């Protein structure tokens, strides 16, 4: 019995403990929200750094995901003579699932890792300690703007991903496969509900933004301050973010719909 418990212990207790520490870290961050010009400016700089610089990746990915969805949908629906429904299927799958989930995963890989590496390296080179010794709170000055920028950026990037997905899908369906443009957009309009479908994706992306950003800043802040420690932390950001996004996607989907 004791042997079984000692096996379960690290597998079960460690993630629970980390989850608890992550939650406490989130509360510490929320307590540092300041609506000061300095923090707003620092947050906007980070929105540019992690949000704007993720645009190309998000736009290209969105465009091709939209094309693939239209291609797959068209092939299957053609067997039943229902190719007119491609627009509706594209809109529903993008807004409800693929848009928020794929954007969050791409964001974790592109921006999450860069946030973790940046904070981890600042720790390894004593910059965070220097700040603390200069009576400047590193959580307020370094961590909070990056966290807030991540939370703000992801829903906006998701909207852009969705838009590019629609453009890619319509390009394939209308320009290549020859579906009537009016039918494509009309069907989408008829079947996609603003609150029941589109807003579900918005809620999800807001939650994913919080999860991915929190994971990125947390793993960076608590990274072992060495080269390998920072490397391990960036890997952890991607792995933990991906798992959290997929788990919470299921939870949110079952709660909202």
């Amino acid at each position, binding site marked *: 019995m004791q042997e079984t418990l000692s096996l379960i212990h690290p597998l079960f207790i460690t993630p629970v403990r980390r989850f608890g520490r992550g939650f406490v870290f989130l509360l510490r961050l929320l307590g540092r929200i300041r609506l000061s010009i300095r923090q707003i400016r620092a947050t906007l700089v980070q929105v540019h750094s992690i949000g704007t610089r993720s645009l190309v990746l998000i736009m290209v990915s969105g465009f091709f995901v939209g094309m693939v969805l239209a291609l797959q949908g068209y092939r299957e629906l053609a067997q039943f003579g229902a190719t007119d429904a491609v627009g509706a299927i594209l809109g529903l799958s993008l807004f409800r699932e693929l848009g928020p989930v794929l954007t969050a995963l791409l964001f974790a890989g592109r921006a999450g890792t860069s946030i973790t590496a940046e904070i981890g*390296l600042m720790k390894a080179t*004593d*910059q965070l*300690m*220097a700040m603390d*010794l200069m*009576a*400047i709170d590193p959580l307020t000055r370094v961590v909070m703007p990056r966290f807030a920028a991540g939370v703000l950026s992801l829903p906006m990037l998701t909207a852009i991903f969705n838009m590019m997905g629609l453009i890619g899908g319509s390009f394939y369906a209308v320009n290549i496969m020859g579906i009537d443009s009016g039918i494509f957009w009309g069907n989408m309009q008829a079947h996609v509900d603003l609150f029941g479908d589109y807003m579900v994706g918005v809620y999800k992306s807001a939650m994913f933004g919080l999860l991915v950003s929190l994971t990125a800043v947390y793993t960076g802040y608590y990274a072992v301050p060495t080269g390998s420690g920072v490397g391990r932390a960036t890997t952890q950001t991607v792995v933990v973010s991906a798992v959290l996004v997929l788990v919470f996607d299921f939870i949110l989907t079952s709660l909202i719909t």
Partner: protein
Amino acid sequence: MGSNAIEINGLGFKRGDKTILEDINISIPEGSMVAIMGPSGVGKTTLLQLIAGRLMPDTGTIEVYGQCVSTMRHRDLYRFRSNLGILLQNGALFTDVSVYENVAIPLREHADLPEVLVRRLVLSKLHSVGLRGAVDLMPSVLSGGMARRVALARAVVLDPKLVLYDEPLTGLDPITVSTLIRLMRDTNDTLNMTSLIVTHDVDEMQRLADYCYIMAGSRVVGEGTPKELLCDENESVKQFVNGLVDGPVPFHYEAPDLQTDYLGQG
């Protein structure tokens, strides 16, 4: 010189079961430059972190300008640190902002000054360390000596009463060392500050410090002016000051018996 800027009594500190510092008693008079010296790994930097309130002692007290650091709450600690200048071993400049911003950050955080005044203060501090021309450079393009000088300008930009230096001269060329020594001395005397320097560089400290403490084996083993220490009869002090291989300070880190380690238990 009047009262003491720093007063440490019976200080003890452990990491796990390992004793790092034991029964440390140090007094640093206002306006002086005092060096804490000793071999690497003896706990000098730990002592600096204890004085700055980043670590809590297990026993004893640390008073800085009459305030007990170890019992301060977070907010009081930050207020105390805003009157403290610190220069870390590698400079620890913020790599995402320019030299100007690095020096301006303490002013922006702790002094509500108009930008024109911030600029004047930053430029005057950079001028005093000879780097006014490097104001727009990023830390990544600075040499080690330049980075240390910018860090010095940042450490004294708020004209603190006390400056803590952690190995400020390590790894620098002789010209930069002499320049920094002159800068540290001038800054201390001009601004009437108190300076505490943690170092293992014996020659340079003879040129800079008014008074020295030498640590070995978790304790203070000698103290006096640099001249007095050169004639000290304590074996640990003699070994450190003269850089002798043989003496009470061991070369090897604590390890099991050599035979057991090489040949195994059997």
